[in-house]
């Protein structure tokens, strides 16, 4: 009897753990289904081509074309990830290869702290400091621009790139490094020819995750990008104001009447965003699996 009870208890705990484990999958599934259900109407009603490539997003006339938002998101992402990569990867190399332990002990937590600052605080700092200084430096009409968004989100993406690249570089086996040094290579040659190539997949994964982070950012970008849904001219003009996919959802969702075309179109943006972010995450995961196999640790 007692043993039987114990068995049931064991089984119960097992089941509960299983439910907890599976819940995130269920949630993701529900999000997918719900978004698809609400967003599909936008693709049907606007027409897939017009919805994705249309250059006007205007609630007043009921025209919904995502091109300005997609281009906006693309520009900001390229700018921000470019900025974060240029600053972040050298910083990761320094942290893992060159920094004395005491310095690393200060630098690493500081970088992680960057990650935990709420995005609205970044946005606020952006509005107060970044916008005016950009305007005065580049003689722009106003600081609200893709450039401002890129710099702000670049700073926000820095910790993602630094911490993951740092881990990837640190996990390169010591024997590789020592072998290279023993052959007479200098420290820089070792880093460039041996360490970095071995860590490249981890670094790539960090960049992909940073792209995901930047694409999904909303509050900060809304405050500094200008929120004007217009294709910049020329289309790569970082010095103009514009809008991104996430910022548009956030600015219009409160006003959209439930069930209207506007409401469904906003969900349509969400569908596209979710697809892009999912693909990015899957690729980043595949790379992570590859690196684990190569380096041979979990």
């Amino acid at each position, binding site marked *: 009897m007692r043993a039987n009870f114990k068995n049931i208890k064991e089984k119960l705990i097992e089941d509960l753990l299983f439910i907890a484990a599976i819940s995130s999958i269920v949630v993701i599934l529900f999000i997918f289904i719900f978004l698809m259900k609400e967003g599909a109407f936008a693709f049907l009603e606007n027409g897939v081509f017009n919805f994705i490539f249309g250059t006007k997003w*205007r*609630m*007043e*006339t009921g025209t919904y074309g995502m091109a300005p938002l997609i281009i906006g998101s693309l520009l900001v992402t390229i700018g921000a990830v470019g900025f974060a990569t240029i600053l972040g990867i050298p910083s990761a190399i320094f942290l893992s290869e060159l920094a004395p332990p005491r310095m690393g002990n200060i630098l690493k937590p500081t970088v992680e702290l960057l990650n935990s600052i709420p995005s609205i605080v970044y946005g606020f700092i952006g*509005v107060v400091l970044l*916008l*005016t200084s950009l*305007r005065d430096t580049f003689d722009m*009409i*106003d*600081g*609200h621009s893709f450039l401002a968004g890129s710099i702000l989100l670049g700073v926000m993406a820095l910790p993602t790139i630094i911490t993951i690249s740092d881990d990837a570089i640190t996990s390169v086996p010591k024997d590789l490094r020592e072998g290279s040094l023993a052959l007479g290579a200098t420290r820089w040659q070792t880093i460039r020819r041996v360490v970095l190539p071995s860590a490249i997949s981890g670094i790539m994964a960090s960049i992909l995750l940073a792209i995901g982070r930047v694409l999904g950012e909303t509050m900060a970008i*809304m405050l500094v990008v*200008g*929120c*004007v849904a217009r294709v910049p001219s020329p289309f790569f003009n970082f010095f103009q*104001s514009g*809008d991104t996919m996430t910022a548009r959802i956030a*600015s*219009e969702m*409160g*006003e959209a*009447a439930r069930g209207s075309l506007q409401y469904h179109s906003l969900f349509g943006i969400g569908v596209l965003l979710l697809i892009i972010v999912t693909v990015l995450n899957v690729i980043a995961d595949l790379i992570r699996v590859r690196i684990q196999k190569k380096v041979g640790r979990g």
Partner: protein
Amino acid sequence: MDKKKMIFSIFLIAILTVPAVHSAEVLTITGSSTVLPVAAKCAEVFNEKQDDIIVQVSGGGSGHGIEAVATGKADIGMASREVKDSEINKYGDRFIEHTIAKDGVAVVVSSDIYKKVQNLTKEQIKMIFDGKIKNWKEVGGPDRRILVVVRKSGSGTRDTFMEAIFGSSKEEARGKYIETSENSEMKTAISQSDIAIGYLGLGYLGGKEVKAIAVDGVFPTKETVKDGTYPIARSLYLYTMGKTSLEEGKFINFILSEEGQKIIKEEGFVSVR
């Protein structure tokens, strides 16, 4: 009778008698989202003051409000515009109009610009917001580019401005460079720049860095909005159909009373008293 049963019966009696005690008349109001916050606030205070009438307010747009009151789906329709001829043709000329508030939108510029430009015509404002005038020197200002700040769609202030300047709230201001979510955000954007133009609800004026200019020679004040000389203004209306009933009259009189008009001022509109 045991205790459980007794509690249950008391509970049941309570439930059954509540509607009997509160057999108040329900007054439904629907329509413009611009009028909605004012009407909802007034309804809240009004419902608390007396027990005979319960006012229920919902949104849906001016057109919806007029249709609902005309077809009897609602007792009172809210509108931020006058009833159209097409609606009178469709539903008959039995609308009774009650003006409950006025709403004015000031055109504002950065203080540096205000030193030289203190008056613009409606046509000049339209050309600036449409991106046809791009430099302040074309309207008598310094040789600087113009930064046009607007509000996001869905804003009542934007609608009032677009209707008065462009003729319809469906038009697009092609010269816009920044879209802001709120009056306060607009104010920040303009005060940070020294070459900006934008618009603000009357209640948000004030401060050194953002200055309201005259439109067609008239400065925006409560007086000029009330007497109709300031051009970028509109009235907020309640519409009833046919004879105004006792309950409808009571609520409308409440809004027009000193207490109701105080709420209207608090919501940033101009009182009609």
